């Protein structure tokens, strides 16, 4: 099978999804109204509530939701063959992610731009809100731990990328100062920033920096993890204009450039997919494809994290309600395209099936390394860039994504600790520094607790992260469904994805429970049990809320209201 044809099929299906299915959902189910006064207009304050051009808003929404997860998940999941991953990413984007993301924006806009968390409290109930907070905390915890492990692994395997990845931070710091002090205008700064980043990528291969295998009794991997958290901790307490803002900006530009390079290389080279369509010969120890495929690929098919972005920030800036379709649904499609590229390079970027099998020697292997190596192969042969430079480029792309998500995730986790300090009247916990330390401590505990002292095995929590993320998406879908019941509109378009997600997450959790027990990994076993309890509570809450609200809607109908 040729990669370019598969790419075109995927893009074609997603285009159809946007023009047909999303139009149907927007007009018939959510009934987006161009005359509805959105919160951005109703509460306009120039700070949080600002009506924003929809292309700009889409750019922000897309770059906030696109991280390393839509790359890592699919690049792990192709171990079952390219077809299952391809189908789940394309169908998931069309029927799950798009509906979920657009729905989250819509639900929030219709409720004074509240976040999904507080919406759950208002629409479903207090209990559901508490579950929601716990699930959010778990997702953030796992995101931070897993991404630290991902970056550390990249730094160890691709020492040529160390200079550009850390140099990017310096570039961002300088760009931040240049803009803040209004020394040169933004268009110039943008060009200079991107050129500086690519110059660093170009210089990377001549200055490889390899962390020794062991430093002061700790493995090199562990040192990188500690350094990353040190960085993320500092970044999350610095003023945003200093580091986060310029970093996000350059990263956003780099995302579009990187995607163009990848897609261009795939189209020019048109490599054959060496990986099997469906892998009958999976390595020993690989779990069953159902349900694990559906939690391994979370972002890229459907992800609860998107609901947080949609309802927390995007909904406050939506100019017209009808823009929700472009921003939410098309944002999900953008993410689907990134996942599609990850699948293609992880399946076509190898010279032979033997090479591919050597990379995917066990479940959890491959992943981002396969993305970098496969992508480098495709770019090298398609665009003629030296292979080591191409590998550095993709490593930087993946590491920067993971890094920005870590910055944001740690900041959000700090807010949660501060909020708990407020609820439980712990003065010390309200302060930024102790709250940040608590956040870092809990992430480190997970990264090392799950993967042993060198932190290299941290990737085994990946499916667990996917599960928790799907659970979050399920809660958001529940809020949307209950709202639809209230408006007496068809609820199946959100209820079916919700049921599917719940069945897949619960079975995946039970299967993993056995795996962790067999591995005698009691730390993850405990975590699995916590997530499982949350999942069961979510399922019960769904059943109870729907029953209650269906009865309510029926009673209202009987009253003739």
């Amino acid at each position, binding site marked *: 099978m040729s990669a370019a044809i598969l790419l075109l099929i995927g893009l074609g299906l997603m285009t159809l999804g946007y023009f047909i299915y999303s139009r149907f959902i927007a007009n018939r189910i959510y009934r987006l109204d161009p005359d509805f006064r959105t919160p951005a207009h109703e509460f306009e304050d*120039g*700070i949080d509530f600002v009506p*924003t051009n929809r*292309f*700009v*808003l889409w750019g922000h929404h897309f770059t906030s939701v696109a991280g390393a997860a839509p790359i890592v998940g699919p690049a792990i999941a192709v171990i079952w063959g390219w077809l299952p991953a391809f189908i789940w990413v394309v169908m998931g984007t069309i029927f799950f992610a798009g509906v979920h993301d657009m729905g989250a924006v819509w639900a929030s806009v219709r409720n004074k731009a509240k976040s999904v968390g507080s919406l759950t409290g208002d629409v479903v109930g207090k209990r559901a809100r508490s579950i929601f907070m716990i699930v959010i905390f778990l997702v953030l915890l796992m995101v931070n731990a897993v991404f630290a492990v991902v970056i550390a692994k990249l730094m160890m395997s691709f020492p040529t990328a160390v200079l550009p990845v850390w140099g990017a931070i310096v570039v961002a710091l300088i760009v931040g100062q240049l803009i803040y002090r209004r020394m040169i*205008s933004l*268009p110039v700064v943008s060009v200079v920033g991107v050129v500086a980043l690519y110059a660093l990528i170009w210089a990377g291969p001549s200055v490889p920096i390899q962390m020794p295998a062991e430093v002061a009794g700790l493995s090199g991997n562990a040192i990188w993890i500690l350094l990353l958290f040190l960085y993320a901790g500092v970044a999350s307490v610095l003023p*945003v204009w200093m580091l986060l803002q310029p970093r996000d*900006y350059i990263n956003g530009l780099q995302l579009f450039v990187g995607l163009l390079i990848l897609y261009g290389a795939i189209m020019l080279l048109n490599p054959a997919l060496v990986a099997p369509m469906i892998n009958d010969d999976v390595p020993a120890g690989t779990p069953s494809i159902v349900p694990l495929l559906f939690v391994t690929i979370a972002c890229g098919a459907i992800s609860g994290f998107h609901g947080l972005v949609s309802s927390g920030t995007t909904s406050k800036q939506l100019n017209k309600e009808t823009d929700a379709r472009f921003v939410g649904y098309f944002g999900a499609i953008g993410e689907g395209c990134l996942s599609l590229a990850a699948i293609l390079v992880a399946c076509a970027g190898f010279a032979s099936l033997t090479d591919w099998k050597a990379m995917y020697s066990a479940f959890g292997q491959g992943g981002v390394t396969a993305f970098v190596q496969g992508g480098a192969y495709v770019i090298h042969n398609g665009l003629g860039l030296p292979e080591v430079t191409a590998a550095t480029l993709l490593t930087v792309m993946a590491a920067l994504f993971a890094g920005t998500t870590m910055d944001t995730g740690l900041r959000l986790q700090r807010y949660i600790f501060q909020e708990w300090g407020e609820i439980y009247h712990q003065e010390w916990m309200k302060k930024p520094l102790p709250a940040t330390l608590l956040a870092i401590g809990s992430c480190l505990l997970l990264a090392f607790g799950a993967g042993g002292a060198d932190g290299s095995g941290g990737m085994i929590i990946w499916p667990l992260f996917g599960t928790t993320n799907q659970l979050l998406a399920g809660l958001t879908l529940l809020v949307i469904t209950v709202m639809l019941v209230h408006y007496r509109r068809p609820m199946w378009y959100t209820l079916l994805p919700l049921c599917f997600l719940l069945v897949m997450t619960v079975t995946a959790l039970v299967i993993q429970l056995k795996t962790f027990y067999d591995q005698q990994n009691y730390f993850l076993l405990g975590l699995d049990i916590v997530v499982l309890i949350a999942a069961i509570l979510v399922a019960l809450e769904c059943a109870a809320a729907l029953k209650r609200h269906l009865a309510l809607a029926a009673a209202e109908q009987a009253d003739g209201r």
Partner: protein
Amino acid sequence: MAADRGEKWRAWLSQARFFLEEAYSSRYRGAIARSRRDHDDLFMLLVFSEMMGVPNPASYYTLELQPLLLERFHDWHRRMGMEHSPLDHFRCC
């Protein structure tokens, strides 16, 4: 024709600049505006505190600078033609 093209080019540039600037600032507009508001609040409190009946914390917190300023203060009141310190709580001679 050339002028027309120049016009178009300028319009395109300003459009590009608008998108870049929005892209840079809109995500963090809220966070920056909030921290600016906090700074402004503190500034207002320091400047107008006595007017609002709140003792100015600045004089309390700068008390420990007194020994460092003593010499210069002494020179200053001599230059101004005052034999002794004009302030009761700041005696240097």
